[in-house]
């Protein structure tokens, strides 16, 4: 599975070597490895983890095609074991905002999922109790934040359990954030590249 996945990647995507390494790293780590008891690096990662804080905007040219959305913005607010991640999808005036409030001390975080915005081209919808179960961990000395999300999607034939492995990895200089997602039902990885949105100068703030 891993070999064929990388083969597909090499032949069909013009991804950088660092990206391939990132994907291989993500794929080699089973989701179970992010259980709290199996993640010794979590407690020591806060120094680098703080570099996630702030707002990140997708670089469409370096990312997997995002349609039907035209932009995606992430905001991290990380304090100790508490990670708050905001995702804002937008297409003109149409937007979808989602907040993931995650506690690293909890084995599983229940996150409200009223809507599944990830791929609106597909006939697949958030359903059931409209929550996803998210396991979260720091890896690689705090440069990699891994989320393993289990959710149920409704399709024309009924409900289907899906796992999404989301790796948020910071570049060494902290300027680029790369999100690699592996969805259990999808044959290709999704790679989104983000750059940091500079904080507005103090005089420009209301």
């Amino acid at each position, binding site marked *: 599975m891993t070999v064929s996945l990388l083969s597909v990647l090499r032949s*069909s995507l013009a991804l950088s070597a660092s990206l391939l390494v990132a994907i291989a790293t993500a794929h080699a780590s089973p989701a179970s490895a992010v259980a709290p008891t199996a993640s010794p690096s979590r407690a020591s990662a806060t120094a680098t983890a703080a570099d996630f804080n702030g707002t990140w905007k997708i670089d469409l040219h370096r990312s*997997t*095609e995002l*349609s*039907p*959305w035209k932009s995606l913005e992430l905001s991290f607010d990380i304090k100790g074991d508490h990670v708050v991640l905001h995702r804002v999808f937008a*297409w003109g*005036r*149409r*937007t*979808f905002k989602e907040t993931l409030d995650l506690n690293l001390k909890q084995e599983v975080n229940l996150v409200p999922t*009223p*809507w599944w915005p990830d*791929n*609106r*081209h*597909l*006939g*697949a*919808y958030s359903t059931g109790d409209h929550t996803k179960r998210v396991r979260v961990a720091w890896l690689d000395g705090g440069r990699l934040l891994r989320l393993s999300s289990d959710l149920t*999607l*409704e*399709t*024309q*034939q*009924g409900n*289907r359990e*899906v796992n999404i492995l989301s790796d948020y990895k910071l570049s060494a200089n902290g300027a680029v954030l790369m999100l690699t997602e592996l*969805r259990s*039902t*999808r*044959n*290709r990885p999704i790679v989104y590249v983000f750059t940091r949105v500079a904080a507005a100068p103090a005089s420009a703030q209301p």
Partner: protein
Amino acid sequence: MKLLARLLRTAALSAALSLVASASGLEPRKVDRAPAQATLIPLSENWRMDGDIPTHALILSLQGLANRESPRLYLEYPKSWQWEIVRPLVGFLERRHGMRFDRLAENDAAGALQRFSRFAKGYVVWDREVRSSLLVAFTAAGVLDGVVVSEELIPLAEKHGLKKLEDLRGRFRGQPDHQIYRWAKDAYWSRCSRDYYVVLGGHAGMEMQPGVADFAIKARAFCADLSANPAHPEELALLNELLAQQNPGSVVLGWHSYAKDTEGQHTTLVGNYGLIMEGLHNVPNVSFTCQIPLTPDFTFRNNHSVAKDTRLKPEKKVYVAALATDSMGIGAWTKPGRGKIPYGWQVLMNWVWMNPPALQFFYEDKTPNDYFIGGLSGPGYMYPKSIPPDKFPRLMASARDLMARLDLRVMEIMDYSEGNRHVGNTDLPKEIVDRYYHEFPDVIGFINGYGSARTFDLRDTRPFLSYEYYLDVERPEDEAAADVEELIQLNPRRPYFLLMHIRETNTVEKVASILGRLSEPVEVVPLDVFLKLAAAEKTYRTNYQKPSDPVDLNP
């Protein structure tokens, strides 16, 4: 008693006839046969207010007047024009109707006036400082039988013997649109058509593409780009006033302003009055084509792959059907690959009277793999959830009539009144699904959605299916193939019925290539076969819009 029974029968017959005639009552008169000769003027690429719009507006208004009683003037829009059909149609009219076009130079307003100024009683001056004054000028031109000129074109009009009928210069400066159109209503509304209201919206700002203004002038329609957005309460109030006064089942022709409101907001409001939306603002030459009859040797024949009462037995496999619905005139009809795979095309049904030669062109140009369906939700573009229940039967009677004329057996439905392909929902509650089954007993099935949706049903042998996949124009083939494969994984039962909606300019070649990349076998079948297979083995769950589904009113 017998007399009473006879009277009741007569009344019932008369009521039935009036329903059937509701669509045809709007139809402009056709000439007995296409004229042997007509004038053709090419138009330039520049549609800017500070560019060629003044000249285009003059020519468009003259076209409406010249074509009022007979088709005389055809405009050849630039190659980049959204309605690519405008050029192939010239060849079709020459070939099938024996027409000859006398071609003038590009933007030749003087040449046009030389030939056709006799159809104008004068001119109406618009104010180049006020964009909306041009739309008011189109309204005035239709009512007063004038051509539309900007200040610098007055000498040209007067050179051809035309006198001033209305002068809008300076009248609207500094005024908001609701005030401008209120003035226009006070001045001209009572003399405007109750069958057509024309929305010359779409492109905004410095760009204007009022391609359908010729028909507005021919029909003496009121023209505006009033907003249906609650953020513009004065414009919305005026728009409500206008729509409420139009005839039942009449037509709103054109398109909403991209700068003011959304397609969802505008079409929802039009539906609230039981009116028929028919796009777009830039559809060309309607004053000409609406008068051209079908050739005597032609009748509409669809490519039915199965008889209406056929029963098929599906295999344990994935069945795919692909469908394009953004109008054949602006889509992939002339692009590479058509005929390569079975493909469905939603017909703009009102073109049977608005643009008969274009529909004849499509029907005669179809390959064995092209299959036509009806839409969109009724006789035109409308959202069923927005239509008052008491207005629904009359509209759907018109749709049945159009479908019969066009040999169509599938009705496609779209509803953006509570969402779109990004947010909210595009599904139908059971009560609306019930209405469609009741109103269309002769169809072989229904299609719902635009983006993906999840309204599914099967009653007797007529499935009601929603799109499973939306192929975005921007979507690369490898990602699209991954999308389709993901759907196949998400739906493990076989047969699996995967209906694809293909957006606008995606080519058939691209779709065939995407399907060719799949690592799992699928069978691409014609839409009527697809529906018959889906009728035979229901692996999809019955589902309607639920009260808990998200609603987004398209802000």
